[in-house]
């Protein structure tokens, strides 16, 4: 599978992590990947176990039960240049996130792309490139570099 430029939203400014997750989830809904119920399960999953991955990246996705809302595999991208804190409210360590990948995965079809994202983002300088990207195509091209 590949990223769809329609599911990439750049230069967003959101105050809370829940809004960031909802935005990533809404892109999945608009892209015909999930039913709206999936978004709540993304929020629930993040409250249960954080989807903050380190390196300014979060990959919100649904819980196990949320899988029933998935219609097809898809990954959305929300770029938040000013950053948003993904830590728990009662936690004083900051978990700043600049790029959010919303994930809906069926039958492991998303794993190749996700693994590219992981390898690319394990270098924080690459994340900076994603956080500075000016067009959706730039994001797609950046992730294509992996493995070349």
């Amino acid at each position: 599978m590949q990223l769809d430029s329609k599911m990439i939203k750049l230069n967003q400014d959101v105050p809370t992590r829940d809004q960031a997750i909802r935005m990533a989830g809404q892109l999945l809904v608009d892209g015909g990947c999930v039913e709206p119920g999936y978004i709540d399960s993304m929020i629930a999953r993040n409250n249960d176990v954080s989807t903050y991955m380190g390196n300014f990246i979060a990959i919100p996705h649904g819980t196990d039960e949320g899988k029933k809302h998935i219609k097809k595999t898809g990954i959305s991208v929300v770029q938040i240049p000013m950053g948003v804190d993904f830590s728990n409210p009662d936690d004083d360590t900051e978990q700043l996130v600049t790029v959010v990948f919303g994930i809906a995965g069926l039958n492991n079809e998303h794993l190749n792309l996700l693994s590219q994202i992981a390898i690319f983002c394990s270098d924080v300088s690459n994340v900076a490139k994603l956080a500075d990207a000016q067009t959706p195509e730039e994001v797609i091209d950046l992730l294509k570099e992996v493995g070349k």
Partner: protein
Amino acid sequence: MVQSKNSSSLKVKVQKFGTALSGMIMPNIGAIIAWGLTAAIFMTPNGWFPNAQINKLVQPMLIYLLPLLIGYTGGRMIHEDRGAVIGAIATLGVIVGTKQPMFLGAMIMGPLSGWLLKKLDDAFQDRIISGFEMIYNNFSLGILGMILAIFAYFVINPIMMWGSYWASVGVDAIIRVHLLPLANIIIEPAKVLFLNNAIGNGILVPLGIQQASEVGKSVLFLMESNPGPGLGILLAFMLFGKGSSKSSAPGAAIIEFFGGVHEIYFPYVLMKPALIIAAICGGITGTALFTMFNGGLKAAASPGSILAILLVSAKGSYLGNIIGVAGAAVVSFIIAAIILKRDKGEGDLAAKQKEMESMKAESKGQQMPSEQTAQDSVKSYADIKKVIFACDAGMGSSAMGASLLRDKFKKAGIDISVTNTAVRNLKDEQGLLVVTQAELADRALQKTPNAMHVSVGNFLNSPKYDTIVANLKALTQVSDRPKEAKKEKTAGSIEGIDFNKIKEIDFIRHDQHVGSATMARSLFEDGLKKAGKSEPVKALKINELSDDDARLVIVTPAAKKNLVVRYSDIQVVVVDDLLQDNKLQEIINKLN
């Protein structure tokens, strides 16, 4: 005991093979008992209550049900549900056209088909066009299943027929010349090394079922399950033992005789290895008496307690079976008593039990929890066969972590599989390393108490990955430490900066560099905090700055041009990379 590395790894190999064989049988013991009881009660004309109609169940259960279940279980051991289904399909190829129960054939075809399907899946999984997964899944299994069933029918089936013909000729010959008892010379020591299930379920039970299907009963079922030798040894301890071994022996004897849990007497033998002679002589006597007095069981006695043995005894074999068990107990008692009386030294039972625990752990291919200390970590890493990342749904974070580690393994030349799954799907296995998020560590530990566990806070950039890689690599390549990936950047000059004046550090958010400035600010602040410093760090737009030499502005070469046009007093450091440049650490060190 086995101490040297070579023999212990041989033991591990033998044990693994045995575990795999008994792993296919163990889950299906219930089905074997169902068949055994049906046959014992209703078989015409030899059963207790012969019934020609119910008797019709007996043959299909034996010929079809049991081998199919074993093939199914064998396939599942290799490749989950898909392996199980194809294992059953392929096993049918071995079954069709024979009148023998194809247990060994099932034990070959089940895992083999599961393995082949797994290889096929591995090869094609990446190339499936999205949307065609179900079609691929069903047809690949169906087509490969058909091919394997045909292969099994034409190739494995004749081999099995030939093999079991000669095996039965061999067993027959041993029985006819009254040599069968000699097999106990091997069986008894193997039992004490906790190979009892492997031998019993892996070898004797399948051969026994075949024999029982021909003549209605088999002595082979009794050879491992006979509680006589263990009972004799424990009775000897009751009378001639000392200290804790004497006082604990009566309870152990009851568990051995009525509960059939052989493991209970193994530590007593380990305490005084010479007692193995008592066990062997008891076993030989038992088997000899079973053969002589026409003993035998209709089905496997599991567990090997006197009650289970009587329950599945063939009609007319009760006397022989009782004489055999009793004889074995008497002989092993006498020999054990002689050994115990001659040797006055008191063994320390507690210590031996500990030794047994660790042997048992070793023989099951697991590590003792106490060995998971940092000191022994390399030893534990030596056992790792695969790595599983676990998260809540198995969809996102664990998949990311797994692909990163897989990538690192590949670069380091480590050939260990890395997969991901949901925590609730974790299975306790041998040689497993489980990586989880810290929040899930407890749940993962509950599911897999015998695995090694590593929990990470940061899936993308955890130093623990490098620890894992380094530990695993240390096993294959001595002293080849992974090179630091840090690129040596030209240590640019930060000379000319007056660090005493600086009150604030700024990163610039300009047109194309908003996100990276946000990140750079956060990382720099972390760095300061770690160094115990607290200057404010800000990410600002270029027009938000004030021209003041208390500001240290860190910029990329592109941003510097704009900066020098507007401001003259601020202090500027140019870096190639806002996040990872060596100069950043230097600045942190030099700040007050």
